[in-house]
């Protein structure tokens, strides 16, 4: 039985680039990876939004209404529903004048128990040090 930890670092704002969405969909795929692994082996995915990437977490996104596209907000909620660890950089939220009231923090409507953690960049650095591999998007 072994665990490999992956850290997904999202640095860019949503929609103009496919990167943030692919970060989330690939991280979410950690929940179905067992089909390729031996019993007991797992892959965990932590997601951190840093820099301009924190803009992915703005709530009340209307991408589905306007472009028929799943919003990054919904992808974040899916990640929470699947118990992924989601971190958002506090310093970057501050830089944009955003508070916890402005971003998606939970997915209670889907029954998710996990919540988004707004943390200093130092905490995100600790996560990066603790994982086996980093994937910057």
């Amino acid at each position, binding site marked *: 039985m072994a665990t490999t930890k992956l850290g997904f670092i999202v640095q860019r704002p949503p929609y103009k680039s496919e990167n943030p969405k*692919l970060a989330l969909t690939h991280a979410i*795929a*950690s929940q179905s990876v067992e089909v390729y692994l031996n019993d007991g082996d797992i892959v965990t995915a932590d997601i951190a939004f840093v820099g301009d990437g924190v803009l992915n977490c703005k709530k009340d996104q209307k991408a589905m209404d306007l472009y028929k596209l799943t919003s990054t907000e919904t992808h974040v909620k899916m990640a929470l529903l699947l118990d992924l660890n989601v971190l958002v950089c506090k310093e970057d939220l501050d830089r944009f004048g955003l508070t916890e009231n402005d971003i998606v923090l939970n997915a209670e409507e889907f029954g998710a128990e996990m919540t988004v953690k707004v943390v200093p960049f130092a905490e995100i650095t600790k996560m990066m040090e603790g994982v086996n591999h*980093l994937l910057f*998007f």
Partner: protein
Amino acid sequence: MGKFTIGCFSSLVGSMSLDFAVKLAGTALEKGHKVDLWVSGNATMLSLKGQRAFKDYSHLEKPLQELMQKGLTVTACEACAEARGYHKEHTIEGFKRHSMDWYLASAFDADRVLHIGGE
């Protein structure tokens, strides 16, 4: 020797990131490493067979086939490919197609992972 997983999300034409990824994969293979190459997003363009080799555009089908014969495993994100109209029948022989969890499974026992993001 170790296992090296390379993920590339950049398009074949325009960024040269796939040129870099394929060259790096080939060099790692020559050094005796096991190499998995995962392409997702716009990089799934790499999986299309029958692309004409103009000198003004990156063209990697031939070196890729040579590397696959030497043991390179190349896999495209199936959903990303289908979303772009790249169906199974359009895929280069030997090029695999799987869901995104394949990339994470490859990373599971990789000694090193290099993730090259997209545009």
